Each structure stands twice: as C-alpha cells, then as structure tokens.
C-alpha cells in the first residue's frame, strides 16, 4: 500500500545576492494514512521551506531542483515541472502561523470558507454556504451562523486559527500541512487547537505534517518526528524514542537547550556556536563544528542518514556514543516539586 504522503529526495535551491544555496537538501519523508509527522529545527533549518515545496508555495527566489512528492501514490510534483498546482491543491492544504495576515481582511470569514467549495467544488451559492457553516461547526466555532458574517479582525486569535483550518478543510484534503499553527497562540488556546487537529485526524483520517520549533508540541500530537539541520534531516523516528533517547547530537543538544516546566533542576544548556551560513557550509556533517562528539572523520565526507534501529535513522557517525548516555541525552521523567 502506498503511504498517504511520500516525499523523495526533495531539494530546493534558493537564490540570494546572485548566489545559490540548498535550503532543502535531499529530504525524504513518508506519512501513513492518518499519521502525523512533526518537523522540528531552528530558524533557517529548512523546515518551512520543505513544507512550502511540498505545497507548491515556494517564494519566487526558490525552486525545486530535484525530488518527487506523491499523495496516495499519485505524483503531484517532481523536480522538472513547476505547474502541478491544480493537481496538488485538492490533496494538500496548508495552515499558516499568522491567521490574521493569511486571511482576507475585507471578506467575511464565512465567504472565505465558502470560496473553494463554490469555485473549485462547483457548488451553488446556497450549497457553498451550507458547506461553510458545516465546516465552521466542525472546527468548533460557537454559533457559526452568527460568526459567518464576521470579519477576521473581529475574531480572537484562536477563532481565526479555527477559521483557517476550516478553509484548509474546505477542499477535502488528504493531508494538512501546518506551519507553526499554534506558535502565536496562548498555551490554553494552543491546547484547544492541537485538540482540534487531533480530533480531525481521528474522525477523518487526515494526515498531518506539523512544522514547529517546539519539541513539547511535537511530543504531544505527532507519532513521528524529523529533526532538520542546515536543510537536511539529521534524525527521524517514532517521537517517543527520539525525544527520550536521541541518537543525533543535534537532537540531544536541542532537547538540552529547552526549558521544561516540570524539569527545573536541569539548567538549560545553549548549543555552542551558530547555525552555519548556508552559503558556507562546513565540510562533512554540517553540525560537526558545534558537536561535542565530533571526531576528525566527521569533516572528512558527507554523512548520510542510516538506519539505527526499528523505524529510526540518524545522520551521525558516532551515534552509539550517545547511546552510552552523555549529558543531555538521558530521559528525564516529569517530577513535581
């Protein structure tokens, strides 16, 4: 059986100041039916660019150089052609971080939800309105008939995000691509939106790809995790095992740098150094200059993802040193003081 979403060797080049660099470098992802995958990494790691390349929403300065995107076995994009937007549009939908700037400020939210059913789905105005009301109900907007005529600025951040999810659902997508959808929200509202996404997954078998910098959020709603660094996936696997026992030093360092409300005894450790300039990547493993486990062989040549256990892979030559339990890699159980 084909996976719901399969991305192979996706490579995206970005032009900046007459120079080119690979913002996404040979990324492969696979999402089963109703699965949820979290992509994490720092700013500039290529996680949002990966999502936009899958959706076909790259900025003008970026282009897919290689790779394929398949939804349920059907090819929706490959490196050669750029105009597969229509085929892609119905299977994939995207939810953005900032609902206020993603929504049309001079159109009622109801009309925005009804737009795709009317124009793409060919529904009558009345049927599209009914469909939009149903979608607003699905995403948990109280009193949808009254909210239908509201403008985005009249709604709270949480309701706006629900409207955006309703718009995303209006084309009956198979996969929802979420780009930091809860980063701008308060924690209790974030929990509500994550709950909604989880419910949609369970009720409709929707696949979810969730890009975030918050490892705690990924742990809550994703089955699988992919950690990106300098445009590449450096570690991937089931979310529980990766977060509790990372096998790439970068994953371990990210975890060690994060603050956790239950874990106050541990002082967060910053990752030394800086994210490398994509125009001047270090030789070999891109994390090697910042890595506490680095050996001379790390800079000698490219380090690719390799299988390291059931469903897990890591791009590290010395991952077994992490298994021995260096600082930051040890699982820490929640402990109430």
């Amino acid at each position, binding site marked *: 059986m084909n996976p719901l979403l399969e991305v192979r060797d996706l490579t995206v080049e970005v032009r900046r100041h007459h120079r080119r660099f690979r913002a996404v470098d040979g990324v492969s992802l696979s999402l089963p039916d109703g699965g949820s995958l979290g992509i994490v990494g720092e700013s500039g790691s290529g996680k949002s660019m990966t999502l936009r390349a899958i959706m076909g929403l790259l900025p003008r300065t970026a282009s897919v150089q290689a790779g394929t995107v398949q939804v349920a076995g059907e090819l929706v994009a490959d490196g050669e052609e750029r105009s597969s937007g229509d085929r892609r549009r119905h299977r994939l939908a995207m939810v953005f971080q900032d609902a206020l700037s993603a929504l049309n400020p001079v159109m009622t939210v109801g009309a925005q939800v009804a737009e795709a059913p009317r124009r793409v789905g060919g529904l009558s105005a009345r049927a599209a309105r009914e469909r939009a009301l149903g979608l607003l109900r699905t995403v948990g907007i109280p009193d949808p008939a009254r909210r239908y005529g509201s403008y985005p600025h009249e709604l709270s951040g949480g309701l706006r995000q629900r409207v955006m999810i309703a718009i995303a659902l209006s084309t009956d997508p198979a996969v929802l691509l979420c780009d930091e959808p809860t980063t701008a929200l308060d*924690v209790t509202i974030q929990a509500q939106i994550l709950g909604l996404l989880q419910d949609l997954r369970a009720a409709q078998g929707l696949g979810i790809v969730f890009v975030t910098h918050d490892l705690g959020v990924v742990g809550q709603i994703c089955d699988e995790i992919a950690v990106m660094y300098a445009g590449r996936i450096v570690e991937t696997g089931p979310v529980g095992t990766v977060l509790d026992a990372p096998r790439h030093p970068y994953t371990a360092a990210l975890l060690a740098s994060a*603050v956790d*409300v239950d874990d106050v005894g541990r002082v967060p450790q*910053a990752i030394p150094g800086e994210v490398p300039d994509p125009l001047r990547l270090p030789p070999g493993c891109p994390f090697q200059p910042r890595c506490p486990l680095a050996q001379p062989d790390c800079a000698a040549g490219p380090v690719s993802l390799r299988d390291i256990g059931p469903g897990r892979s890591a791009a590290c030559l010395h991952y077994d040193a992490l298994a021995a339990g260096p600082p930051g890699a040890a699982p820490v159980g929640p402990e109430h003081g």
Partner: protein
Amino acid sequence: MADARLAADDLVVSFPVAGGHTLRAVDGVSFQVGAGQILGLVGESGCGKTTAARCMAGLLTPDSGTVRLDGAQLGARRTAQQRRAIQMIFQDPYSSLNPRLTVRRMLRELLAVHKLVPRPAMEERCRELMGLVGLPAAALDGLPAQFSGGQRQRIAIARALAVEPLVLIADEPVSSLDVSVQATILRLFAELRDRLGLAMIIISHNLAVVRQLSDQVAVMYLGRIAEEGGTDELFGSVRHPYAQALLAAAPRLHQRGLARPDLRGEPPSPVDLPSGCRFHPRCPQAADICQHDDPLPRPVRPDSTHIVSCHFGADPVPESAVTPLTG
C-alpha cells in the same frame, strides 16, 4: 519584604473603547520585587501583564494606584533619574533598535545624553557593556541587521544597562528566539541579577521560562492577579484553577499524548467582565458562590505568602462546602 526596590500598589488602568465603554486592562494589581530578585509575571494575551509593566516603567500613567521605587512614590512625571532607574526591554529587539546606528553610536548617544560617562571613558564603558551581555567588543561596530536574534536581544539589554538601572523589566524577552538561544538569554538574566543586584520583572506566557528564572511568580487573569507566591511554593502546589489549567496546557518535552486542560472557551471580553469571580464562566470547579462573589486574595495557609484569589483555593477545603455547578 519591607525593603522592596519596586512596589506597585493597587494599580488600575482603563482604556476607552468604542461605544463609550471602558476596558479595565489592569484592575487593582499590587506586587513588589526586591533588589537581586526576579518576579515572573505570567498570563495570556490581554490579561494586563504588559500594561501593568508599562505603568511601572513610567510608559503609561495608571488611573489610580502608586508605584514606589525604594519607598519613594513615582509621580506621573518622573525625573530623568527615576526614568533611568527603571528600564524596559521588549520582545522584538529588531524593531526596538535603530537600524541605522551602530551599536557603538547607539550606546555613546545614551551615555552622552544622560551625562553618565565623560567622553574619554566612553569607549571603555561601551566595551564593558558588551562584556556584561556576553558580546565581543567588535560587536560595537555592527548594525542591528548584522546580528542574529539572540545577539540583538543582548544588544537591547546592553542598551538598557547603559543607563545603570536599578530595575529591569523584560516583556517576553525570549518569545521570538529559537529554543537553542533562549537558554543563553535566560542565563544572562540570572547572571545580571546576581552580578548587578538588579530587581527584575520577567513577563512571559511561558511557564517554563518563568519557573526556571523567577524567585517570585504572579499569575494574572483578566486584569487581576489570580495567584502569587514564591516560585517553589507556588509550583509545588498550584491552587487557582486557571493557574492549574495553564500548567496543564504547557507542552512538556517528555510527555506523550495531548494535554487537554479542563478549561472552557476563551477569555471573555475585558469590556464586559463576568459577575462574581471573573474566571467562573471557564472554571471547571465553579460553584454558586463564584457567580456572585468576587473572591478576595487570601493566603493558602495562615501567614503564607502564597496568595490565591479563589473561593476554594485556600487550605483547608471542606469537601461538603463545595456544591458543583450543574448545567
């Protein structure tokens, strides 16, 4: 705490809104912070935490209530010295730094305007400030755009420290930074508290940040303090249902599965506050009394500094007195 460095007493701030209504952004808030101490102010958007902080920094005049610095009341018009004493840094260092000034020019201008350092000693002071915030002296030649987010936040901190403040107020200082950088900025705050004896107020929606850094914590909801106390005591036994929901909703690194805090809906409009306890429409534990009586702040135990504004927050809670709200 008799010798609070900065104390706010019963602050009230309201704003006129459309339709002749008034929005009470801060509705009777008091707290204090001592030298060498960090107070964490937590709450969600619109709870009034930033407005309260702006009052203390003198960026906003409260309708009523007082702000005292070392016991002296600060008037609506503060002296230059009083303004210098309380400095504020903001979430987005990029928009709060002048993009066309090098770090050196920005700092020298400040030092000159406030007549803090004679001209020949300025370069030395600039280098010292860079050292305090953990940047190399070479950073003085840079423009804001040439730095990363974490470095820009350090520059904003250096600028605040240039005028030798007694109090530093930081409004969401790490929210726009990558996780990997947050840790270094948090550590810098702790270092500055210890080295300079600063009194600090850290405003954040992130409970983990506040718990990591603060000596005292105040949780705000709709313009009021719902719960406050020493960090260890408060987190050791969170009493207010709102604070409990916030804690339950906080993402954790090693928790699997979704936290679904028992919290209904979204905060009501501060223009039209609910009767009784302002949290009761969303509260999973609301009883009849909560609809009618606004709970007064009370210590969780006699003589405790852990204060909660909930009818059922204090020890002991006689089970029989609780009649659950039905319907």
